[in-house]
């Protein structure tokens, strides 16, 4: 199974969260937004300057910077 992180997802692609890394604060914040193992995420679009990127997470559109989305590992 190809393992990658959320920042590598291209616009229009779906992924399933496998695990989160990073320090406790940012992990808690991401989990509170619904990014727990098993969540389906879709990359919607990148900002015109490349960062941040908008993702569809549990019915909401959330923008994440690359420095945070590298912590989200996908199946």
């Amino acid at each position, binding site marked *: 199974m190809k393992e990658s992180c959320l920042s590598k997802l291209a616009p229009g692609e779906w992924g399933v969260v496998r695990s989160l890394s990073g320090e406790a604060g940012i992990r808690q914040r991401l989990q509170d937004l*619904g990014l727990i*193992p098993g969540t389906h995420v879709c990359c919607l*679009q990148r900002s015109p300057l490349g960062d941040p990127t908008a993702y569809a997470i549990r*019915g909401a559109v959330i923008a994440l910077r690359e420095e945070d989305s590298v912590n989200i590992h996908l199946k």
Partner: protein
Amino acid sequence: MGLTKASTGKGAVDCFSPDGEKSAGIRIALAGNPNVGKSTVFNGLTGMHQHTGNWPGKTVTGARGNYTYRGGTYTLVDLPGCYSLMAHSAEEEVARDFICFGDAEAVVVVCDATCLERNLNLVLQIIEITSKTVVCVNLMDEAKKKKISIRANQLECLLGVPVVCTAVKMGSERNYGYTELLERVRQTIKQPKRCSMPVRYGEDLERAAGMIAETLTVLCGEKINPRWLALRLLAGDTQAVRSAEKALNADIGEIAKDALTCAYADLEAQEIARETISDRLTSAIVQRAEKVARSVVKTENESYHERDRKIDRVLTGKCGFLVMALLFLGVFWLTIVGSNYPSGWLSSFFFQTEGWIYQGLLSMGCPAIFGEIFVFGVYRMVTRVVSVMLPPMAIFFPLFTLLEDAGYLPRVAFNLDKCFQKCSACGKQALTMCIEKFKMFYLYNL
């Protein structure tokens, strides 16, 4: 609104504290995610009887207001909007500390009916702390537009707390659901506190939490839910525990030390590492929120998502900057050109009236020198300022508010975030920058 003598006078800074004697009524906390219409509900209930200030020692603003219902006076404390009580921003700490230790008789959690699942995360966390919670599902009119329906009775059943649906305007009815909300809050206050367990964490964690909670029951008494405190200890949430220690004036770490060690040993024997406990607790809440939302929210129409995505592709895609530049240029152009006409009319009107007022003063026997000072000095300056300053303000701010209500401003923050990051700021500051730019230009043109 909020700008009363009490809120801006000399004593204003001191009296904003939830413990102040000024909060005469039964204390109710008002919590919820950001942008769910919490302020609207707050204003709708308290009207002019409110004032704003900073939470003591923090840079987080809050508001407190009174309302009366069926002979009782209630003090509504507007907590900062937050997505959870577990992360550690200033807003979340203020909200958590007030809900847990602020002696509120009840908590009203305002939710957005159009994205209930995300709001349920906070709702479940709050119900875990106190059973005296009322869930207010707001923005029902928006949900209706998007063909989203909420089964409030089912939600009430699943959560075990009262649920009220509200909207600022539903059909022809204004402040829909507000009276029912007041009534349910009144009833909730009368009920005794009970142990609420909206989320179950699996046998292993529940047993561990139970062990620790037993040692804390006496200490917590009626004030704090011992199960919640036990879970925070297990998760290693030192900040929450520290706040609890301050509130209860006890060394909780010491009291629960043995039980905690035992619990950790027990969990490790089942191969559950200490570091993963916090993640497991959070996951369980998110999963429960998903399950509840799935059974109470019915969406008939998926296509509105598509339309929003298409619009976003224009606003935040390759042409994003062009669209942004055009929009803002348009707003500034409308303001500058548009304000010329009313400025001209006001100027000539005030110029006419100058002569009349001067003649009037002279005919009343006022000495010429005073007449000149008043009319050609004071009056002229004031009217000049009004005719130049008022029209641009009256055009710019409504236009900007239109952009804000349409939801465009987060797209601006999204587009500009990278630039702001380079200055160690973040996209949100783009909005303050717009307003500052306008002010600069405005004052320059005076």
